[in-house]
Every structure is written in structure tokens, then in C-alpha cells.
């Protein structure tokens, strides 16, 4: 590394790479070289900025100019204009969804300006493959401080005082968990990082693993010291090849630098770290199932107690935390627990990363202090609903979570407030749905997922979710019965109390909360055989309004089953017997003459 006047940061996260950021990077490097700028400007590949939708993303420092949707040919223009002549390429600046005004600076983007990025502070800012860049951001200082100035007990106390709670779903006090494991008799103990991130629609862990891997290693090393462990595992899902690659590289680098391995920083503390690739089972995210999987067995949960802190991996005391939890540890130890506890709300301290997706204008990773309201996240940061449609609900917490409605928009987000409202913090998936989404279908979607992923060990979860799903399918197909709603509630409550692990204990949540807030939609399906959102295909009919149809024949061509007939310039007609309700005609009609109800 040498000193350069300007750094051009190119996002190399999964999202931007799929948009071609590799080629952009190459083109920038070539252009810089060809213009003889390679002594003064360097190109750096970073991790995800959390704004993947606007990707590929390029940022030019020191100005901090934020370019979006950059293609290789645009990269040439950035070299010719910005780097060579100092002229910002206006065309590529981020345009705010609501005002279509170009925003030149990173910091000024509403998407970022309202966030507090502690956990994600390095993501998109440093080269994740460079240990030096992490060190420049105070990396490994906390580990050094802990190893030389603090006893393991003090570290546990600090983590307790910070108020940090598990970011993997449960929200259990991290300090308490560490204390249990620390008190468990040694000598052999393990620390584990849960990077299985199974919650569909959530990608904050991926982003951290890809964008700031050393922060996770440092956090784990501190935890190992506090609990008396000398070995650790990172269990990462196989669907994240880039994350695995970066983890392996960072571990090798840290070992070479003497920051992992034997006699770390000359203090006599040893810690080795392995990466285990998951094999594609959602339930392996559950901590006891995960340990079974590391041991090479079927990933089925074990009954607790005994808790992992007493009897975990290979029967030894173990502590397992989520990626985001680990990623907070080093910063807490660096700045002190009071600093961290300063952020937050009520019993939920610090910040939380949410994966904001669905029908919002700005999708991406959003880190906000606990206590921020849902409205601020969805409307201020998320920029509101796509196409100005009506907000209907947010689904929080994935397959274990629930839906919240308009009445909850001003709810400050905390573990307790979400649970009280019927959702959960979960891993932080936040899916926004609008008036076109059917809540019964949404509940069915999640139940299909948990049903498929149920490991089958306990009966309430295996059979109960199947029964619930059958009922939901029946309802969405127009065969619902009056007693179905009561049965769903009865079954759901039973499954919640009787299941062995968190999968079954939470699987009915999406159904129960939609029943709580959108019971009328279930009733419309059952009693009137009608889907108010127009989403359940069995319950909709597609018709052409003869008053609006001008006979352009576009729909006839789009229909895959030739269900539409009519002569040019005459209103067309849909043969309801043939129609498969795919909606292809609705999409192509330029006159909005086709109705889906």
C-alpha cells in the first residue's frame, strides 16, 4: 500500500458483482493506467454498501462522490471526466426517488443520512481483503486492549453492561450467555459464529461477512478470551461463496500477522478458527442443530437443557452467537460499554441492521438505533412505497415473525415492542408489502417455507404445520370453510407451545398475526370467495372492459394459451374456460382496459 491522492471505491459485494462491478473495476484500472494516473489514484474493491439496488456502486474520494448503476462504459467516462478533469459525471449520480434530484455526496443521501452505521461502519468503506485497511479503522486495537489490560471476567462484565443482545433472533443478553459459558468448567471450550442466515429476505450477515470479515474474527477472539475457549467455528451457508472466500482469506492473513493462532500479540493467548460450510437446511440455523451439523450429523435440534454453555459442540461448553452480535463486540470493547449503551431505547441498546426489501423505493441494508420508528425506516430511509401505492404492512422477523400494519408505523422498534405487537425482531428482515399483496397468500408463503424446512423430529411441528398449510391452501383456492379460522388459531397455539425447537415454536406466527390484523381478508376468501388484493389466482377473474379496449391486439399476442379473441379495432373478449389467470395481458395492455379482480 502507498499513499494516493484519490481512492476510487468499487463495490464488490454479491449484488454489485451480479450487476457487473468486476468489469467496472477492471475498466477503471485500465483507464487510470492509460492516462498515467496510476501513481496518484488507486482503485479499491470494497464490500456491500447495503444499497445493492442502485448497484454497481462507485465512490470517488476525497470528494465522496457517489455514483450508481455504473456500467463499464460509464467507468470510462468517470476516468475521462472526473478523474482527469475533475468534473462530476452528473448523469450517474444517485437520484432520490421522490424528488429525482441528483445527490452528489454519500453523506447527503437520505438513505444514509438517517442511519447510524456502527456495525456496518466498514462495509463499503474498506477493502475487506486487506488487514491493513481494517487496522486503519482501529481494527484489532480492542483485542490488544483486552488481552493486555482486562481480565476475562472484566470483559464479560463490559459486554453485560453494554446491553448487547443476540442479533440472531432470540435477543438474549450476550453478556449473560458469555457468563454461563465462562463459568462452565474447562479446559476445552468452543466459540461459534452462526452465519447460516436462513431467514429468506435477510442479508445483513452476508454483507458483514463480505464487507468486514476481520471485525467478526476480532469479536470472536475477544469472546474466546473472555470465556476461556481456544478454538472457534464459523458456520456459513454454502449459498454465500464470496463470504466464505473472504473469511478464509482474512483468517489466513490474521494468522500470518499473529493476530490469530498461537501466542497472539505475545500475550500467550491462543485461538484458532475454522470455517464450516453449511449444506442447505434452514433448521441448521438453530444452535443445537448447527452443532450437530458441525459434528457431521443430520442437523436436528437437541432438546435443551443441557444448554450449549454446559454441553455444546462435541459435548464441550460452547457459546454461539450470530454474525451481527460478534461484529459489535470489538467496537464495544474499543469504545467502552457506556458508549454503546448510549444508543438505543428501553431494554434494547445499540443499533440494529435491517434488510429493507419488498415494495419500497430504496431497498437495502439499514442500520438504525433501537427505538427508531417503523415509519422512519420505511418512509424516510426507504423512500416510501414504489409507484406511490398504499402501504399495507411490514413483515418483520421472517418465517418466525409477523406482520405489522399502519397503526404500528409510529412504534419505536425494540425487542419488547415488536413482540408485544405480534412480530419479533428476528434477524432483521423487514419486508414491505403494499395493497397488491394478499395477506393470506403471504402467510401461506411463510408456512410453506417452515413446513418444508421442518426437520421432522417432533410431531407438533411436522404434522401441525402441514395441517395448517392444508387449510391455507384450501382458503386461497376458494374452498375455505367457516370453521377454518378457529382451527388455524387452535392449531397455531398448540404448535407454538408443544414444539421442540424455535422453528416450530414460531412457525405459526405469520398466520396468527395476519389473522390478528387482517382477519377480514381471510373472511373475504372464505365467505365471498374473493381475494381483496387480487393475488390468489383461483379467486380472480380477468375481464376486458369493452368501453376502454380499442382492439390493439397486444393482449392476444401476450396470452400464452390463446384465450383472447377479437378482431382488430374491436373490443376483445377473454374465454374464461381457457384463461389461466397469468396476468400477462394485464401487463401489456397500454389502455388499462383489463381488470383483475
Amino acid at each position, binding site marked *: 500500500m502507498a499513499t494516493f491522492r484519490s481512492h476510487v471505491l468499487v463495490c464488490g459485494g*454479491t*449484488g454489485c*458483482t*451480479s*450487476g457487473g462491478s468486476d468489469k467496472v473495476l477492471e475498466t477503471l484500472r485500465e483507464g487510470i493506467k492509460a492516462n498515467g494516473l496510476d501513481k496518484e489514484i488507486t482503485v479499491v474493491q470494497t464490500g456491500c454498501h*447495503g*444499497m*445493492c*439496488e442502485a*448497484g454497481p456502486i462507485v465512490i470517488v474520494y476525497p470528494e465522496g462522490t457517489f455514483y450508481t448503476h455504473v456500467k463499464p462504459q460509464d467507468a470510462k467516462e468517470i476516468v475521462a471526466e472526473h478523474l482527469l478533469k475533475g468534473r462530476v459525471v452528473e448523469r450517474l449520480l444517485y437520484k432520490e426517488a421522490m424528488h429525482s434530484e441528483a445527490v452528489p455526496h454519500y453523506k447527503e443521501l437520505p438513505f444514509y443520512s438517517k442511519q447510524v452505521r456502527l456495525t456496518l461502519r466498514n462495509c463499503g468503506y474498506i477493502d475487506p481483503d486487506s488487514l491493513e485497511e481494517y487496522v486503519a479503522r482501529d481494527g484489532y486495537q480492542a483485542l490488544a486492549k483486552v488481552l493486555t489490560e482486562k481480565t476475562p471476567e472484566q470483559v464479560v462484565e463490559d459486554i453485560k453492561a453494554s446491553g448487547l443482545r443476540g442479533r440472531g433472533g432470540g435477543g438474549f443478553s450476550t453478556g449473560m450467555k458469555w457468563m454461563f459459558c465462562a463459568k462452565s468448567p474447562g479446559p476445552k471450550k468452543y466459540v461459534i459464529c452462526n452465519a447460516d*442466515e*436462513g*431467514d*429468506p*429476505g*435477510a*442479508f445483513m450477515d*452476508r454483507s458483514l461477512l463480505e464487507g468486514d470479515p476481520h471485525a467478526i474474527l476480532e469479536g470472536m477472539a475477544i469472546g474466546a478470551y473472555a470465556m476461556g475457549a481456544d478454538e472457534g467455528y464459523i458456520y456459513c451457508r*454454502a*449459498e*454465500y*461463496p464470496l463470504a466464505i472466500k473472504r473469511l478464509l482469506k482474512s483468517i489466513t492473513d490474521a494468522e500470518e500477522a499473529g493476530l490469530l493462532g498461537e501466542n497472539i500479540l505475545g500475550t500467550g493467548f491462543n485461538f484458532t478458527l475454522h470455517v*464450516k*460450510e*453449511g*449444506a*442447505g*437446511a*434452514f433448521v441448521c440455523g438453530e444452535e443445537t442443530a448447527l452443532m450437530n*451439523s*458441525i*459434528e*457431521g*450429523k*443430520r*442437523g*436436528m435440534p437437541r432438546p435443551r437443557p443441557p444448554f450449549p454453555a454446559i454441553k455444546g459442540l*462435541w459435548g464441550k461448553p460452547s457459546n454461539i452467537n450470530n454474525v451481527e452480535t460478534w461484529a459489535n463486540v470489538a467496537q464495544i470493547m474499543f469504545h467502552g460499554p457506556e458508549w454503546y449503551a448510549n444508543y438505543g431505547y428501553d431494554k434494547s441498546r445499540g443499533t440494529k441492521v435491517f*434488510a429493507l*426489501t*419488498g*415494495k419500497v423505493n430504496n*431497498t*437495502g441494508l439499514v442500520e438504525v438505533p433501537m427505538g427508531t420508528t417503523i415509519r422512519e425506516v420505511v418512509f424516510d430511509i426507504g423512500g416510501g412505497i414504489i409507484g406511490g401505492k398504499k402501504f399495507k404492512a411490514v*413483515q418483520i422477523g*421472517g418465517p418466525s415473525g409477523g406482520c405489522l400494519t399502519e397503526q404500528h408505523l409510529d412504534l419505536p422498534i425494540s425487542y419488547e415492542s415488536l413482540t408485544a405487537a405480534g412480530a419479533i425482531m428476528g434477524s432483521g*428482515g423487514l*419486508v414491505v*408489502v403494499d395493497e397488491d*399483496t394478499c395477506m393470506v397468500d403471504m402467510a401461506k*408463503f*411463510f408456512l410453506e*417455507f417452515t413446513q418444508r*424446512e421442518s*426437520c421432522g423430529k417432533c410431531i407438533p411441528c411436522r404434522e401441525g404445520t402441514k395441517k395448517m398449510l392444508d387449510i391455507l391452501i384450501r382458503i386461497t383456492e376458494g374452498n375455505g370453510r367457516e370453521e377454518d379460522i378457529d382451527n388455524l388459531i387452535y392449531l397455531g397455539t398448540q404448535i407454538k407451545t408443544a414444539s421442540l425447537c424455535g422453528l416450530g415454536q414460531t412457525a405459526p406466527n405469520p398466520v396468527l398475526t395476519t389473522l390478528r390484523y387482517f382477519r377480514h381478508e381471510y373472511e373475504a376468501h372464505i365467505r365471498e370467495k374473493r381475494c381483496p388484493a387480487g393475488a390468489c389466482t383461483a379467486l380472480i377473474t380477468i375481464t376486458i372492459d369493452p368501453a376502454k379496449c380499442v382492439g390493439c391486439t397486444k393482449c392476444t399476442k401476450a396470452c400464452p394459451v390463446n384465450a383472447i379473441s377479437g378482431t382488430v379495432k374491436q373490443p376483445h373478449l377473454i374465454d374464461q374456460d381457457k384463461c389461466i389467470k*397469468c396476468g400477462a395481458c394485464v401487463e401489456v395492455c397500454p389502455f388499462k382496459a383489463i381488470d383483475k379482480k
Partner: protein
Amino acid sequence: MSTATKDVAQVTKDIVAPWKGKRGGIIPILQKVQHEFGYLPDEAMVTISEETKVALAELYGVATFYAQFHLKPRGRHIIRVCRGTACHVRGSLGILERVISELKLHEGEVTTPDLRFTIEPVACIGACGLAPCVMVDDETHGRLTKDKVPDMLSKYE
């Protein structure tokens, strides 16, 4: 056939070798074997069982538990259509249906007869910002529409 069988056994033995006498090797071994052959041939399973002294039933138990393992040959390219929440809300079912119809797969089929493609729905590939997404082999395709499907597929032979 006999030479092929010998190869399978030999290759499998080589994969198992470094794990002998160590714990936790089953899943990494299965992953490597599958990486080698594209699926888990019976022959390889028998060899693993012999070499590691883990019962064949237990091996199959593990292999069938995880979505990642396959006991039948698979296509040269794996199409993973994301069926995660973010993609669902943005129309991934339509994408899945289009892929199936493009590949002319019949109900219940996942691999094309010419072994060009195998299709498998997955729950979230972590590129939710680009929903709906499809991953073909290690390459992620985001912001898809049904009409972009044929083009995307044509890149893979």
C-alpha cells in the same frame, strides 16, 4: 463401467484420506465427493462408509437431510431460482414458471434430459436488493423479468 467404478472408488478414497481419524468430516467429505461427480454416486457412498466406518444408513441419513446433497446425476448448470420473501413479493413465482416452461420440464422433473440444466428453488441467495434473483452456477442474475429468462439461459451451454 468397471473402470468408471474404480475411478469413483479411488477418487473417493483420496477425498476421505485426510479426514481419517478426525471428527466432523462427513459433511465436508460428502461436499467434496459431490463437487467431484456432481452428485453422490452409490459407489462413492459405499466407499465412504467402508473407509470411515460410518454406517451406510447414517451416511444416507445425512445426505438426504440436507438440501445440498443429491443422489441422482444433475445438469451441467444449476439454476437456483430464489423463492425467498423479497423475491416472492416481487414476482419470483412467475420467473420460476417461466424457467420451467423454457426448459420444457414436465411436472416433477428437475433436470433436462440432455443434462444441460437442473433447476432448484432456494430460499434467498442474499441478493434481496436485486429481487427477483436467480443464481446460475455461481453467477447471480438480479432484477429479472420473465422476458429476460430466455436470454439469461442462452448464456449457458
